[in-house]
């Protein structure tokens, strides 16, 4: 069955030759120095290639180094060794083409929904009128038109996530990084948000790296799933997911092929999760 191809070779064939891949991590390592002065390695010999317009998911045990990987792509952190390239260029600071959706609430609580969504264009020097027009448009696209003047604390968790999506998408990022964005939501809301995300993403041509610890979420969303080893993280296996798009999140989980794909990837992931758990238990005194 050629539908599912575990492979380390993820470079797209000839067609991609013209355009550089959206994101490239080449042999990247990232070490932290703890406050006690000890060095610890979070990423080791990490290779990753995400083509333009591709949706990549990253799964791995908790604490293995997934967030660290994303931070390297944003330019907020530098690799200790190796190179990180975005659109063929080495990363040297925050790239305006990058958008990031955080796991925790990163909205500005003192700003209304409208002001939160308009923040990106305003920071980037777009005239106020235009910025707010654009913000209204994006708020309508995430179905929050009635809540423009609300403050984040007046919204539900799912609504706040919609605001966060609008806030990110309004900048029209070419690269969209998402760090367990839906992990704090209940299952029904999460399914809705996944659909919402795919709807917003389709047609933008943006490349996505979506970190999650939920394997089913990864398979449902991704073109390609990276399974990481328990820390220090390195790529264990890359799986191509060839489920047809558009996908409907509430139905895909009953799809026979989906279930098969999950099983195959889980076989790779399980081992790492067990190692990760063993470690937490060992260090848990």
């Amino acid at each position, binding site marked *: 069955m050629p539908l599912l191809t575990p492979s380390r070779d993820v470079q797209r064939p000839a067609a991609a030759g013209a355009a550089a891949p959206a994101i490239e991590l080449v042999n990247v390592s990232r070490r932290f120095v703890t406050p006690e002065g000890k060095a610890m390695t979070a990423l080791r010999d990490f290779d990753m290639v995400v083509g333009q317009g591709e949706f990549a998911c990253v799964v791995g045990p908790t604490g293995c180094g997934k967030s660290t990987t994303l931070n390297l792509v*944003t330019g907020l952190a530098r690799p200790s060794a190796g190179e990180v390239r975005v659109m063929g260029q080495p990363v040297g600071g925050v790239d305006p083409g990058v958008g*990031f959706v955080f796991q925790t*609430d*990163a909205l500005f609580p*003192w700003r209304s929904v409208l002001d939160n969504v308009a923040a990106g264009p305003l920071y980037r020097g777009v005239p106020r009128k235009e910025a707010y027009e654009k913000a209204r448009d994006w708020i309508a696209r995430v179905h929050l038109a009635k809540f423009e003047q609300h*403050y984040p*604390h007046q919204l539900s968790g799912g609504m706040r996530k919609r605001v966060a999506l609008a806030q990110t998408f309004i900048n029209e990022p070419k690269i969209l990084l998402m760090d367990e964005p839906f992990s704090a939501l209940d299952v029904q809301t999460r399914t809705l948000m996944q659909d919402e995300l795919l709807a917003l993403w389709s047609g933008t041509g943006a490349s996505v790296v979506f970190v999650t610890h939920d394997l089913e979420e990864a398979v449902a969303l991704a073109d390609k799933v990276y399974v990481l080893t328990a820390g220090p993280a390195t790529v264990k296996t890359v799986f191509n997911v060839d489920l047809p798009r558009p996908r409907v999140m509430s139905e895909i989980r009953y799809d026979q092929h989906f279930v098969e794909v999950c099983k195959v990837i889980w076989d790779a992931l399980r081992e790492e999760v067990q190692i990760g758990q063993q470690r937490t238990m060992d260090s848990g005194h």
Partner: protein
Amino acid sequence: MTDMTMPSRAVPSSEDIETAARAALARRKRLVVGLRVGILVAVLAGWEISTRLEWIDPFFFASPSGIFSQIAIWITDGTSQGPLWEQVLVTLEETVLGFLIGAVGGVACGILLGRNKLLADVFSIYIKIANSVPRVVLGSIFIIAFGLGMASKVALAVVMVFFVVFANAFQGVREADRAMIANAQILGASPVQITRTVIIPSAMSWILASLHVSFGFALVGAVVGEFLGAKKGIGLLISTAQGAFNANGVFAAMIILAVVALVVEFAITWVENHLVRWKPTPFHEQT
């Protein structure tokens, strides 16, 4: 299913319950206010009677009627150092000036050091030392340096305010959420924009909390400064009365000071409530 067939007549409607609860609440409120007024009246009456019957000496312990007539004289005839309103205004002016300078300086330094790790590491030791000096003692130095005029009182009020506001602003900046800062950065904010739109608003509740207490400190600074040496002000009123063994005058000045402090306190609370609109209502205020 006996529960379901209970006669509904026996169950009071929710409206009845609400009316009863509201009535109980009103009764209780009346009781509290009544008791408060009662205690005040009892204390004042006891004080007045004791001095009239000379159980205690009104010369040392003053008397409510004496204090009242002292205030009345100050209002109608003015004090020995000029009209009463002038004393109040002078003290208020010193307080407000000292408060503004101290607060602005404290906020500015707090944000600067909060945003710059090196500056914070270098200066933290000096700030600790300066903070450990009892600030009222500085009043004497300021009077020597700046004279009996307004400047020395303003200076004392400034140092009273500065450290409190500084410490809170610094802490507020440090507590600003990492993810929120990273979010602003990725959305395209420059360092200045981050300070203005993320750091300052998130430190704002800390800063406001400190402004609240530090206005009181500014008032203390101004009054103590006047007490130590001045030409005008409520503090001087107290020290003059004290010098003349006028117990009524000391109490009268204290009451005026308390009224001023209360009015200002209300004003600050009002400003606070209008500045921090985005905050969720605390649970105890929700109904």
